[in-house]
């Protein structure tokens, strides 16, 4: 059997002013074909004005097993939020 066409992750910018957002993936031999495939699969109803395609194997993801050590330390640092600080009501514009 022939080699499988490589996998690409697809990102769509819904309109200018917004970031590209991950929507799914396509198989394609090269970047040009991946863009064309992504256009047909993910933007049939004006879902976007710009596409990114990235080879799936170029993405490094964080390990869900490390989610606790990566993200939980932020939980006890409420002083990073403005509402942590009590300011009298008569102080305006702060």
């Amino acid at each position, binding site marked *: *059997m022939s080699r*499988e066409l490589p996998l690409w992750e697809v990102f769509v910018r819904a309109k200018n002013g917004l970031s590209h957002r991950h929507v799914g*993936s396509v198989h394609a031999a090269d970047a040009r074909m991946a863009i064309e495939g992504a256009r047909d699969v993910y933007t*049939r109803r004006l879902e976007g004005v710009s596409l990114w395609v990235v080879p799936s194997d170029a993405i490094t993801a964080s390990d869900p097993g490390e989610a606790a050590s990566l993200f939980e330390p932020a939980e006890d640092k409420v002083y990073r939020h403005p509402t942590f600080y009590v300011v009298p009501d008569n102080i305006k514009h702060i």
Partner: protein
Amino acid sequence: MYVQEVKTASLGDRPVPVVVEDPARLAAFEARVAADEFVEPKDWMPEAYRKTLIRQISQHAHSEIVGMLPEGNWIGRAPTLRRKAILLAKVQDEAGHGLYLYCAAETLGVSRDQMTQALLAGKAKYSTIFNYPTLTWADMGTIGWLVDGAAIMNQVPLQRTSYGPYARAMVRVCKEESFHQRQGYEAVMVLAAGTPEQKAMAQDALDRWWWPSLMMFGPPDDQSPNSAQSMRWRIKRDTNDELRQKFVDITVPQAEALGLKIPDPDLRWNEEKGGYDFGTPDWDEFFAVVSGEGPMAHERLTARREAWDNGAWVRDAAMAHADKRTARVAA
């Protein structure tokens, strides 16, 4: 389009190897799912959950792809340019739905080619509905109205299914499916309000598609062995019989508005339960069609195999071209 997850023969025949899993991890997983949290691709999951999802999502994807065939059959014979453009867009959507779903299944560690090969080898299932022939133009409208209608009924709860990529694919699919159903109903409306011959054609299509549509919700709950586990894992959110009842309740008034008759002598309103009582589909026929005995089963798979084989040189040429360019850049 949609397929209920159907147990494949090969899984029933052989003893399934028991994977011993860490009870603490399993309990944590069950708790997360019970709390309606989404499971994402790299998260730990029980092997049985992964396998059930691969089977269900790939069957669902295959159904979308095979589902293009009965409708593609009528693109060249659509009665007007308007209808032709609509049908083309719908069939293209089905291809898109198949691709969203294949890519969701791929996040579980199965490759696209493995899934394609399973379909072409006749090892994978797809919805029984596509093993019935599309004999007249009225079938196009009726499929949109009933088959896509049943699909919506099945797919809406799947937008909250526990596996994130599957749920997200369903959100996209459901948005597009509504167009499929409405264009179908509109096409049947035109026929039902047309000449006596056109109205008869619409009635004939309803007569042929009604029961296969009810079968799309899968076997009765007491004959659906995987349902309980799938409900517990939030892969499924409603039982087959609940969805079938809902479908009948909303579809009967739609048929009445068209002046068409549902082909079920046992159909009557039950005031007490606030829904319709209806007859039992021919489940022997359902199981025969699932195992590949539908009138069109052979033709559907042959068409898919030819498409795959005839496209092989294109895939190979595209890869050879990409390889050549990569080599040139490296040099």
